[in-house]
């Protein structure tokens, strides 16, 4: 095969040659059952639904839909495991099982990354370097806690809650499963977990890993399905704790459903984070952080920095740099290692995003988008920013969950604090300034659970994550992430 060699041109833009990650090393079944009591079972509903690659709309696998009987089976398996082997086991041995899961994820990391990208549409660079390593690290970190709980909570005699029902979103499928399962197991609970219906595959691969790690049957049960399955878990009488990550709307429905019961809960919900650039900030670094803050994972991030506040004196230069940087982003095949912007997770979500783009323009804001060829198949939205935005605009108030940035300006620190906090959400915030004392001033004023200073979208198993106000309650990660799974 003779490939034509093009002469180097120094006048225009250089293109990258395709560098796709291979998919020939992964193994995916045609059909996945429900992981109940250590085995993959056919659903008693006999229903299966397809999982589709959002980047090309190709069929990947069939996923079982769990009905009421299946949910009952999963919960009773979890209860039996909790009353049986899991609570009788020493904390130390329990920890060794969790270490095994961490190691197996590391061993299979590339396979998991590729499947995550196929199933969810996120760039392989992100699934490979963020999702999968953080998932493994989460299990590793919490494995170490099992026999040390008395040091985290001195004089409290911590006890597991029981059976945890966990419902997770489609934006970080494996990582969210790890965030949920690792602390639950470390504290001695058993689990019934439901992944989102568009992204079940890595959770099911995790089920295979849990089988391979030889965990006692029923300690982890992973059942698939859509909203009805999630509701079935939430409403189940024999579940002691609900852990939910998803939209604020659904979170409120769940809170209502469990109100008056003895179920404990943690809610990690939506956000509309302020990312604030002061005039003394290192601007190139800040622009890079803003790009990462909103376009990471196509903006499907609850803590995405979707509201940018720029101090007026540097607005023009920041806007120019942002636009230049957006033009250099590469949108396309998520499996390509050069890709910055992958596919939107589902047709439905693309519809939601497009609705907001329309509203934004109708309300009078100016839209700017990356100009690039859009693949014919699949669901795509180019990175977008809006200027001429005011606090009352819908695109500045509501969570879009897509690659859409709303930019406003400010003059004084008081003004920006007021504007940034003027939202029902409170998950995260970003501050860009060269002045340390200003950072600590801002962090103390922000009504948000995570504040990133001169960085953004950083996650670590040791670091608590979760929101103020309508962004949810409870924390995941760190020592604080143990509390929701313990009774004292």
């Amino acid at each position, binding site marked *: 095969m003779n490939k034509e060699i093009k002469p180097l041109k120094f006048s225009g833009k250089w293109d990258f040659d395709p560098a796709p990650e291979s998919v020939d090393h992964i193994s995916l079944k045609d059909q996945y059952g429900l992981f109940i009591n250590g085995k993959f079972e056919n659903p008693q509903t006999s229903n299966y639904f397809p999982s589709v690659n959002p980047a090309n709309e190709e069929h990947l696998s069939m996923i079982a839909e769990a009905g009421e009987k299946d949910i009952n089976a999963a919960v009773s398996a979890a209860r039996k495991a909790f009353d049986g082997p899991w609570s009788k086991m020493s904390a130390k041995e329990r920890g060794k099982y969790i270490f095994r899961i961490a190691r197996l994820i590391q061993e299979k990391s590339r396979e998991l990354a590729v499947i995550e990208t196929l199933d969810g549409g996120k760039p392989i660079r992100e699934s490979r370097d963020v999702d999968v390593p953080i998932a493994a690290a989460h299990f*590793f*970190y919490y494995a170490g806690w099992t026999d*040390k709980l008395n*040091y985290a909570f001195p004089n409290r005699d911590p006890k597991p809650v029981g059976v945890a029902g966990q419902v997770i979103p489609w934006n970080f499928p494996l990582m969210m499963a790890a965030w949920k399962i690792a602390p639950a197991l470390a504290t001695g609970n058993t689990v019934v977990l439901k992944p989102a219906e568009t992204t079940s595959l890595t959770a099911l691969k995790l089920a295979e890993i849990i089988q391979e790690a030889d965990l006692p049957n029923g300690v982890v049960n992973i059942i698939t399905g859509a909203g009805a399955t999630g509701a079935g878990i939430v409403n189940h009488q024999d579940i002691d704790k609900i852990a939910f990550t998803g939209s604020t709307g659904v979170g409120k429905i769940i809170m209502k459903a469990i109100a008056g019961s003895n179920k404990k809960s943690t809610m990690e919900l939506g956000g509309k984070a302020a990312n604030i650039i002061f005039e003394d900030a290192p601007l190139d670094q800040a622009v890079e952080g803003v790009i990462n803050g909103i376009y990471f994972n196509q903006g499907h991030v609850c803590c995405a920095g979707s509201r940018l506040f720029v101090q007026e004196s540097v607005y023009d230069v920041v806007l120019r740099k942002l636009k230049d940087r957006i033009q250099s982003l590469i949108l396309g095949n998520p499996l390509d290692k050069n890709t910055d912007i992958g596919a939107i997770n589902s047709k439905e979500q693309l519809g939601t995003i497009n609705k907001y783009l329309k509203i934004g323009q109708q309300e009078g804001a100016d839209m700017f988008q990356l100009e690039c060829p859009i693949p014919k198949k699949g669901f795509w939205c180019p990175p977008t920013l809006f200027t001429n935005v005011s606090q009352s605009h819908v695109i500045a108030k509501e969570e879009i969950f897509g690659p859409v940035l709303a930019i406003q300006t400010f003059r*004084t*620190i008081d003004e920006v*604090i007021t504007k940034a906090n003027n939202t029902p959400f409170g998950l995260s915030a970003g501050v860009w300034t060269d002045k340390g*004392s200003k950072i600590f001033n801002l962090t103390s004023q922000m009504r948000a659970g995570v504040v990133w200073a001169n960085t953004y979208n950083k996650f670590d198993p040791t670091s608590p994550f979760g929101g103020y106000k309508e962004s949810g309650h409870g924390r995941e990660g760190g020592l604080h992430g143990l509390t929701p799974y313990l009774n004292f």
Partner: protein
Amino acid sequence: MAERINVLKTYKIFIGGKFPRTESGRFYQLNNRSKAIANVCLSSRKDLRNAVVAARGAFEKWSGSTAHNRSQILYRMAEMMEGRKDQFISELVLQGVDRKEAKVEVDLSIDRVIYFAGWADKINQVFGSVNPVATSHFNFSLMEPMGVVGLVAPEKSGLLGLVSSLCPILVSGNCAVVLASEKLPLCSITLAEVLATSDVPGGVVNILTGKKEEIMVHLAKHMDVNAIYLTDNLEHKKSVQEEAIQNLKRVVLGNQISWGDRTVENPYIITDFMETKTTWHPVEVISGTGSGY
């Protein structure tokens, strides 16, 4: 057919990731029921100095690695020990330990490495603090490793005592110079082989065999050693403490409980080999008054 002749192992010392013989060329014979089982290096003062140089050289890298990374490396060490279980057991038996007890000791040793591995990224969450000072400052205290720690290893527990006293030193990022048990030195050298294949950087752990009484005083005197863990041989407590004063080495004394006891597993023995560092940072006080900043 002639019986195959076994290949016998030369037990050497472990300095800077390498396995040299003692520079002194001396040895002592290890016997079990008056049968010679090994010729063990009788390390010298010069070996000790070389070991301290190696430990100091490794400190920056080891203490600068992330806690997560150190945790993984210690866990790797446990994985490697699991693979050498039979070797550890037969060495303990060779040195006169009952086989059943040896098996229990080795299992417990591996689990203990995992226990301490888990502390690497938790120690600062439990012992670090944010201090609510009354001025407008963000003030926090973090625990940091001390540097080079001399470990006078337990005399009567060749493997369990060794890992139980060594891991708390390592996990926070210290480097160690170990004076191995005189009577039960074999597992310490096999542990060195584990360390050498567990991604523990060379020099982080250095293991010397020989007569403790001869080398201990030089360890206590050495001006580039930051702390000494005298787990055993407490009859030398006074002289070690006196010599340590020269550079105000911290001296941590063993408490004579059995190494199999559960209470050996605690984080306080880790913090014994750490310093507390407090940082002050101003917090801007502009806000709430409509300041024109």
